[in-house]
């Protein structure tokens, strides 16, 4: 008997991979998340050299490639309101399998906004959920404000902000 390519019985061997990863957030990000959880405050870090205000705060400025010291003057408090740079609303699905087109039907998501919180500069961008689902009411540059979860619901995650709701600007 020899190897013939039309071997009809082609098997696959299943393997269930269950794994978990437990990781801390990092020195600065941990403090930012604690401030979000305990005081519903948004904090970022400013690089002393290039003055980029970095969210999430990291101990290194990626462009200047130097350590950002843990000093009060390097920390920047961001406001509770911000401007939406751009937004998108997934009407199809995020989990599209491009080959087969398979995607879970009925996945409705809120629009995701790229939000520049007040107090930051053009480098300070956060992606977060927008409350308004009717995209006709949204436009680039719209003003929004953070709606926080109640203190007992907050766990020190980005999702401690429930969503960002539109700020009604009187004409």
């Amino acid at each position, binding site marked *: 008997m020899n190897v013939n390519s039309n071997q009809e019985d082609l098997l696959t*061997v299943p393997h269930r991979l269950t*794994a*978990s990863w437990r*990781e*801390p957030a*990092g020195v600065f*990000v941990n403090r930012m998340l604690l401030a979000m959880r305990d005081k519903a405050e948004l904090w970022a870090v400013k690089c002393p050299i290039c003055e980029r205000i970095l969210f999430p705060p*990291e101990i290194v400025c990626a462009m200047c490639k130097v350590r950002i010291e843990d000093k009060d003057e390097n920390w920047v408090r961001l406001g509770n309101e911000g401007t939406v740079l751009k937004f998108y609303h997934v009407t199809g699905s995020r989990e599209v399998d491009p080959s087969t087109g398979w995607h879970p039907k009925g996945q409705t998501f809120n629009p995701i906004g790229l939000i520049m919180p007040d107090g930051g500069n053009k480098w300070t961008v956060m992606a977060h959920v927008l409350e308004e689902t009717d995209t006709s009411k949204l436009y680039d540059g719209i003003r929004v404000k953070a709606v926080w979860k109640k203190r007992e619901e907050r766990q020190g995650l980005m999702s401690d902000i429930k969503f960002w709701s539109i700020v009604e600007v009187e004409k």
Partner: protein
Amino acid sequence: MNRKVAIVAVAQTKYEANKSSLWQGDVAYEPIEKVLQQTGLTYQDRTKNGFGIDRILTAGEDHLVGRTCNSFWIHHYLGAYRMSQDNISGDGAFAVYHGVIDILSGHYDTVLIATITKESETSRAAAENCYFDHIFLQPFGLDYLSASALQARRYMSKYGISREQCAQVAVRNRANAKNNPYAQEPLDITVQDVLKSEMLASPISALDSKPPVSDGACALILTTEEKAKKITDKPIWIDGIGNCRDSHYLGDRDLSDCDSLVMATKRAYSMAGITDPLKEIDVAEVSEEYTYQELLWSEGLGFCGKGEGGKFMEKGISRMSGKMPINPSGGILAGNPIGVAGMARVVEAATQLRGEAGARQVEGAKSALAHGYTGACGQSHCVLILRK
């Protein structure tokens, strides 16, 4: 070889069982910051005259980080903005090997190599299980421990290597580690302690193996001869490199052999012009995660003949007071994470030749061997020869 390559700075973190408060990036940045300070170098895009680091290499693996493109997530700690970066999927020694190749190719001049692994964040054994052939080996739940135990018994039964001889390796490495401030778990133990410690997978007991969980990082900078002389008065030349892969399936080879180490060693020795290793090498940093491996790798490295690893150990040549000390740092047996372990050997070997090894310094060491391996039972080995 048309260009010479030198190590101009090395740094490592303390190896600990659980650096739980620090994220991967924070741990990785510690040694990177040290080597930048030691050399005064920065990255090419931050310099005026272009004389700076122009290549970054890491040695990470997706399963240990739990994300695809594992080095991408700590890019801003590596200083990878506007830089050429790549990740070697294997042991850190292979990353140093690739750094030397990059410089010899003439395409890069100054390479920063950084490796970080936090075994405390996941189950290393579950990742090791994914190393094995999914059709024939993985279903048995194999991992490095069980595969190494098969190799240990094969080697010990074929050549009459005793558990006592293996235990001496643990005793010596754990004792050496007492002089190494970076070591994770130095111990004062006796052969009897090793023999009586809990049997994990016969014949490997708990003290026959490395500490189960280890976190840590290390970094070094390689550069050309011309630049090295400007940066430091203690350049450490990498005169020989060699690596090799063996067959994957545990039954394909007699596990008491380590052919790929023999071939990797031959390549490194011929490049460095070494004919009698015991005479021409002053100190060796060998990667072994289980005690029997130091004996078997000693044979592969040409320190002794086939099957004579045990006798070589007892001759005391590899003791700190011997002719060619092995693992003054305490090696992996004193605690090094996967992926970082091989590079830690290079860092330790360079530290010895720079004369900065403090209490664990081998006096007058001029040439050193550093060794790392990837895969169960040492499927792929990498050997580097360093000289002052």
